[in-house]
């Protein structure tokens, strides 16, 4: 598929992004650049100066809600992308309402228990729709540990091992690799759906 064909497919797609931190902000920008028509982003947090080591924000945006700052940044890249931003804490009770129109959901939370909550909730409310999770992004180096796995409609990107800690901080390069792996997985799924009639997707 050439770039024009890819854009023709992706412009009618909606991708949800739960969390606008290191994974979510970078994945959202990548998806906007390749022409995904609509992004639904949600995050309750505001930009902190310590986020700038990895998250797609700028110095003047410190203090702004991340979801709105991300919408502004995507608007400066491609104003044709429709970004719906929800400044809200995602809980199991509001996930269906916010993301029910999405073709795919990207899990971009920080805390492992939140990741688990989202995966469990999604498997109940939208078991037929893919969810792409990020797990294991901390530190630097170890390129070959970063991997991708698929089980049913759950896709996991990351090394599934390195946990963020004082001595193992999240840094732009490795967080960016995993965020882009999530974005890459999302468009791969959507472009394959186009090639194969809906309902006949091989497992």
């Amino acid at each position: 598929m050439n770039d024009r064909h890819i854009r023709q497919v992706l412009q009618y797609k909606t991708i949800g992004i739960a969390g606008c931190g290191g994974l979510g902000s970078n994945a959202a920008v990548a998806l906007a650049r390749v022409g995904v028509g609509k992004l639904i982003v949600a995050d309750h947090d505001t930009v902190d100066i310590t986020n700038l080591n990895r998250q797609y924000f700028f110095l003047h945006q410190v203090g702004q809600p991340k979801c709105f700052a991300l919408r502004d940044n995507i608007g400066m890249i491609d104003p044709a992308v429709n970004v719906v931003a929800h400044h809200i804490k995602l809980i199991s009770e509001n996930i269906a309402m916010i993301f029910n129109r999405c073709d795919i959901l990207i899990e971009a939370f920080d805390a492992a228990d939140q990741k688990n909550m989202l995966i469990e909730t999604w498997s109940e409310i939208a078991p037929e729709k893919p969810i792409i999770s990020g797990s294991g992004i901390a530190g630097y180096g170890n390129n070959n540990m970063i991997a991708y796995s698929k089980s049913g409609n759950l896709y996991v990107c990351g090394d599934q091992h390195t946990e963020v800690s004082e001595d193992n901080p999240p840094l732009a390069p490795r967080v960016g690799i995993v965020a882009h792996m999530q974005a890459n997985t999302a468009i791969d799924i959507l472009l394959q759906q186009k090639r194969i009639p809906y309902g006949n997707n091989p497992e």
Partner: protein
Amino acid sequence: MEITLNNRQECFDNEKITVSELLTLKNFTFKLLVVKINGKLIKRDQYNSATIKNGDDVSVIHLVSGG
């Protein structure tokens, strides 16, 4: 029985085992795991009751903080 665990073949003497038994046998010690049997999510409160049989395709995914 023989199962697929994270895309690898594994043999067990038992005819069936629970998810809890599998996690102990294979030393999965991470705090947060996602377990799927044949693509279906098994919640934490089902680990003692959900059983794995011959031929099942099992995924055990580690969830670690960071994002």
